[in-house]
């Protein structure tokens, strides 16, 4: 006869493993946003697991059957939800509009049993303190409030200012804790040799680098273990821009200085051309 404590230990370990794989199988959705279905199954699976682990008089396989059924139903309903919008609305619920055209929908608030205080709290969580700033707000099925501010209260974007900004790609982290990461390095088509050259340019060794990233322009920026050391930031792009500006000014000077009509024309034409080129690459070189 196995002692009771050993039985509990074995059952506990067994159920931790079972729960781990069941949750993995159900996917990220189970842990990220709890729709009410997931909420119910999450609690039930946990309870069954605990109950069977501790209740020695119960059959361990009955527990597993319970858990598998509780896991299978949301899994199947998830598959069905992908196919049918009606089913999805029924199972996962739909959002409720709380604010429309800048006006609070009192009836919807009542329907979801939210008080004014709770609405204000949800708005504050979204950094909104004045209800009149809101154009539209909807309570999602998951219980989050999504807020669309009125246009004049929305953050200013480059588009609003008619600014042209350079489009960029995501930076790659190539050094972590002094260790070179080969995969991100390969993604941007660089070799270890290149990285060593860049590090040499900065005057640091790999071991001293806590974090190293390569940006969209192939420039390496590093954070060192030793925070007393100063590392140079990449200067190439601003340098190109300033040289271009200087040459453009020179060309204008030459145009003023020369007596030859032909040369004057050539200088001013090229200075204009260069100015246009500068305007074009300014967003890229400035950043």
């Amino acid at each position, binding site marked *: 006869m196995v002692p009771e404590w050993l039985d509990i230990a074995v059952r506990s370990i067994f159920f931790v493993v079972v729960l781990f794989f069941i949750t993995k199988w159900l996917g990220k959705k189970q842990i990220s946003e709890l729709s009410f279905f997931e909420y119910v199954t999450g609690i039930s699976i946990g309870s069954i697991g605990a109950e069977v682990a501790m209740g020695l008089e119960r059959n361990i396989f009955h527990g597993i059957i319970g858990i598998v059924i509780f896991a299978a139903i949301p899994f199947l309903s998830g598959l069905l939800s992908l196919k049918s919008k009606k089913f999805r609305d029924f199972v996962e619920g739909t959002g409720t509009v709380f604010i429309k055209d800048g006006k609070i929908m009192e009836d919807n608030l009542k329907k979801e049993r939210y008080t004014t205080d709770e609405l204000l709290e949800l708005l504050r969580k979204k950094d909104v303190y004045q209800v009149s700033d809101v154009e539209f707000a909807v309570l999602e099925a998951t219980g989050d409030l999504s807020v669309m501010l009125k246009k004049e209260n929305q953050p200013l974007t480059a588009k609003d200012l008619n600014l042209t900004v350079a489009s*960029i*790609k995501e930076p790659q982290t190539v050094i972590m804790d002094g260790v070179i990461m080969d995969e991100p390095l390969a993604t941007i088509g660089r070799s270890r040799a290149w990285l060593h050259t860049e590090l040499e340019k900065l005057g640091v060794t790999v071991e001293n680098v806590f974090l190293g990233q390569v940006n969209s322009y192939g420039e390496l920026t590093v954070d060192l273990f030793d925070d007393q050391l100063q590392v140079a930031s990449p200067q*190439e792009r601003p340098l*190109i821009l300033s*040289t*271009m500006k200087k040459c453009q000014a*020179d060309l204008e000077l*030459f145009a003023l200085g020369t007596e030859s009509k032909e040369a004057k024309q050539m200088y001013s034409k090229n200075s204009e*051309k260069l100015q246009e080129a500068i305007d074009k690459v300014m967003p*890229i070189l400035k950043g």
Partner: protein
Amino acid sequence: MTVGSDVKQCFVSLKGVEASLSSLALRTLDDDSKRSLHETMMVVHEVVTDLKKRVGELEQEEFQYKGF
């Protein structure tokens, strides 16, 4: 210093810019930025070509400073 040497200096700087732009264009990952940089490089190249011609003319005029 003469006008010729000033023009020469500008010419050399622009040639450097052309090379830097070209290498930056090669290293840049974003396609739009890459294209802009490349097009700018072409424009700079045209300016460089014109300047080179002018440097030649100036050397004819100030032949005692020849050396290019």
